[in-house]
C-alpha cells in the first residue's frame, strides 16, 4: 500500500485549522484573565500525549480500523466504545453544521436563511463523503493547494495591529481548570484526530509525519488566542464573540482591493470545515454500515445527512448551540481519553498474547 503521509498530514492540518480559529480563542480567553500560554500549552500537551498513545496503539493493528479492533476484542467492548464514538460523530456533525451556519449568517450572509446555508454545507459534505475516503483526502490536497496559502498569508497579516505589551502579565495559574469554557475549547483538539484510526485499511502513513503536522499546528493554536489579546487586550477581546475573526476584521491592507480580508479567511476555513464534515460523515457511515451491512452506505449517508439537517431545526438559537456544546464536552473527553488508551491497552494485550504463543 502506498505511503500517503502527505495526504494524512494535510488532512490533519486542514481539519484542525477549520476548528481552531472560531470558538477556540474565545473559550481560552474567557477561561483565564492572564497568562494564556498555560491553558494553551496544557491543551497542546494533552493533544500530543493522546495522539501519540492512539497511534502507538493503532500500530499494533496494522491495516485494521478501530471498528474491527473493538469488535474483535468482544461485543461488550464494541458497544462500550463504538456507540459513544458514533454519538460523538453525530453530535459533531450537528453542532458544526448548526454553529458554522450561524457564524456565516452573522459574519457575511445576513439575508440568506439559515436552512439554505445548512443545506449547502450538508449536501456538499455528503457529496464528498459519498465518494469515499480516498477522494476526501485528494480533495483535501486540492483545497490545501488553493486555500492554505490564503490562510497562512492572512494569519501573518493578522499581526498588523499587534501590541506586544499586552502579553504581559506573563505569570499564569491553573485557575482555568475550573472554567467550563476551557473544557469546551477542547473541541479544537479532539475533533479531528480520530480519523487516524479509520483510514488504516485504506491509506498508510508514518506516525512521525502526523506528529509533525500536529507540531505545525502549535503556532496556530497559540496565536489564534494571542492575536486578539495582543490587538485589543484581554478585557476587550473577552467581550467579543469570535475574537480572532474580529481581530482579522481590523486588518487593513491598502494594496489589496478588498476591504474585508476576513471574508476570504473565513471562507477558506469554511471550505476546510466542509471537508471535515465529509470526513466525519464518512466515519459515522463506516460505523453504521459495519452494523447494518444490508443497507447500502449511500442510503445510510443520505439518511444521516437528512437526520442532521432536520435536527438542526430543533436548535432555535445560539444559546442552545452552546448548551449542546457543553453536553458534548463529556462525550468529547471520553473520546479523547478512553479511545486512545483502550486501543493502546488492547494493542499491548494482543502483543503480549502473541509473544506468549510464539514462546
Amino acid at each position, binding site marked *: 500500500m502506498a505511503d500517503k503521509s502527505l495526504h494524512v498530514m494535510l488532512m490533519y492540518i486542514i481539519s484542525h485549522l477549520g476548528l481552531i480559529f472560531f470558538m477556540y480563542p474565545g473559550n481560552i480567553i474567557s477561561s483565564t484573565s492572564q497568562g494564556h500560554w498555560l491553558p494553551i500549552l496544557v491543551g497542546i500537551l494533552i493533544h500530543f500525549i493522546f495522539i501519540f498513545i492512539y497511534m502507538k496503539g493503532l500500530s499494533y493493528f496494522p491495516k485494521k480500523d478501530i471498528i474491527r479492533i473493538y469488535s474483535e476484542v468482544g461485543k461488550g467492548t464494541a458497544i462500550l466504545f463504538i456507540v459513544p464514538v458514533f454519538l460523538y460523530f453525530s453530535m459533531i456533525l450537528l453542532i458544526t453544521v448548526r454553529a458554522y451556519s450561524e457564524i456565516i449568517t452573522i459574519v*457575511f450572509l445576513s439575508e440568506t436563511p439559515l436552512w439554505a446555508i445548512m443545506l449547502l454545507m450538508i449536501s456538499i459534505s455528503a457529496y464528498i463523503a459519498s465518494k469515499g475516503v480516498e*477522494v476526501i483526502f485528494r480533495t483535501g490536497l486540492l483545497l490545501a493547494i*488553493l486555500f492554505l496559502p490564503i490562510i497562512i498569508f492572512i494569519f501573518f497579516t493578522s499581526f498588523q495591529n499587534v501590541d506586544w505589551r499586552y502579553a504581559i502579565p506573563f505569570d499564569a495559574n491553573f485557575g482555568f481548570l475550573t472554567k467550563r469554557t476551557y473544557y469546551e475549547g477542547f473541541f479544537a483538539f479532539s475533533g479531528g484526530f480520530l480519523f487516524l484510526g479509520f483510514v488504516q485499511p485504506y491509506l498508510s502513513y508514518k506516525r512521525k509525519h502526523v506528529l509533525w503536522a500536529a507540531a505545525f499546528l502549535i503556532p496556530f493554536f497559540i496565536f489564534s488566542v494571542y492575536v486578539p489579546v495582543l490587538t485589543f487586550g484581554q478585557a476587550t477581546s473577552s467581550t467579543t464573540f469570535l475574537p480572532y475573526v474580529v481581530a482579522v476584521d481590523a486588518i487593513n491592507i491598502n494594496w489589496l482591493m478588498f476591504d474585508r480580508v476576513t471574508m476570504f479567511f473565513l*471562507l477558506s476555513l469554511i471550505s476546510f470545515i*466542509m471537508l471535515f464534515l465529509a470526513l466525519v460523515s464518512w466515519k459515522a457511515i463506516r460505523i453504521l454500515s459495519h452494523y447494518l451491512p444490508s443497507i447500502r452506505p449511500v442510503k445510510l449517508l443520505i439518511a444521516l445527512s437528512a437526520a442532521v439537517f432536520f435536527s438542526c431545526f430543533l436548535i432555535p438559537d445560539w444559546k442552545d448551540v452552546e448548551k449542546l456544546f457543553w453536553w458534548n464536552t463529556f462525550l468529547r473527553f471520553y473520546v479523547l481519553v478512553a479511545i486512545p488508551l483502550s486501543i493502546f491497552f488492547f494493542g499491548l494485550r494482543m502483543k503480549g498474547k502473541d509473544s506468549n504463543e510464539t514462546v
Partner: protein
Amino acid sequence: MEQLVQEIKSKLENNEDFLLQRDYLADTAIILLGFNTLVDFVKTRAVLQKHAESHLLQNRPPEDLWNAIGELIEGNVNKAISSIYEGKLIIHLADTDRSIIMEPVSTMLDRSIETPANENVIQGALNAFTEGIDANIGIVRKLVNSEELIMASYSTGQNRKKKLSLLYLEGQADTELLKNLESHIEKNIHQDISDLQGLAKMLGFPSWSAISKFNTTELPHHAVQYLKKGRVILFIDRLPFALILPSLLWDMFAIENDRNFPLPIMIAIRSIRIIGILITLITPGLYVALVSVNPEVLQIQLALSVAQSREGVPYPALVEIIFMLVILELILEASVRLPKSIGPTITMVGGIILGQAVVEAKLVSNLLIIILAATTIANSTIAGFQNAVSIRLFKYVIVILASIYGLLGLVSGLVIIGAYLAGLDTYGKSYLYINVKGNESNGR
C-alpha cells in the same frame, strides 16, 4: 466461369466501382477482383508483371510466385469478399479454386503528413498525426526507435470493421492499466467505436463524466513523451490524433513542448496556465457574488465604481452574466462552424460591435465585458481543447452557486469541483496523479 468468381460477382456487382479483369501472369490465366476506387489497377498490374518476370528469369515454379505475392486461400468466398472491402486485391487462378489476397498499390486517399491543424507548436517538431492509422503508428515507431515499443491491434465493430491500435512501452506502462484496457477491448470488441463516446463505452468509462478520459494530441512528439512517462496510446483508424490514457489533471497545465524552454521559463508558462484555469473558474462567479450578494467585501471606492458601471442595467447580475456568457459561447461555437474566410468577421461582429453596443445600450455593465474577456482569454490558456471545454462548463456551476450564496457559493463551487476532480479515475489511477509511471508513490 468459376464458382468462386461467380459468387463474388453476384454479391458485389451492384457496386459500380467493382472491377473484374482477366489477365495472364507467368503463363497462367488469372482474374483480378477489386474496387477500382481503392486499388490502383494500372500500377498494381505493373508491379505484378515485374514480379512474374523476375520469377521467370530465375526459372522458379509458379507456385513460388503465388506465395510471394500474397496469401493463398482455397475457396472461402466470405474471406475474399471482406478482403475486397478492406481494399485488397483478389487474384483468382483460373480453373482452380485457389486465389491470392494481395496487398495492392492503393489509390491515394490519405493526406500526407502535415503540420498540426488544431494544436500550435512554438519551437518544436511540426509534424502531426493523420487519418491513416498505419502512418501514425509508423511515425511513433520512428520517434521511439527502440525495442521497448509494443503495439497491439484490434479489429473492432460488428459490420463495419474499424482498426484500433494500442501502443505502450514495455516496462514503463502500468501493467494493471494495460490488463484492464486489454480485457475491456477484448470483451467489447464488437462495439462500434467510430467516435470517442463509443470508445469510452467500449472501455467501460462512465458516459456522464464531464471530463474526457482521453487526453488527445495531434503531435507525435507529445505522444511519445507521454509513452515514456508510462502512459498508453490508442489510435483509431481515421481519427487524426492519439488518445493518451490515462488523462490527468496536470495535463491541463503541462505541455511536453514546454521542456524546450529553459526551466524558469517553463515554470512561468505553467504557472500562467494555472492562473488561467483559476481565473476562468473564479472571475464570473466573483463578479456575481460581489455585485449581487457581498458588495461590502470591496473597498468603498471600488464598490462605488462597480455600482456606477452597473447603473441603469435593468436586471440582476446573474441574468446579466448568463446572458453574456451564452452569447460568448455562441460566438465561440460559430467561429468553429464557419469557414476560415468568414471566421474573422464573426470575431469582429461579436467582439467589437456587440461588446461596444451592448454596453452603450446599458444592457450590461462595462466591468462585465472586461470580466468576460478575461475569462475567455484565460480559458484559452488551458492545454488541450477537451479540457478547456470542461472547464468552460464548470464555471457555470460556480456562477449559479455564487448568485445564491455569494462568496460562500464561490468557495463551495470550488470545493465541489475539487471533489469532482478528485473523484475521477481511470481504472484506479486517480486523475490527480502527476505521473503514472511506477506506482502510486509519486501520486499527488
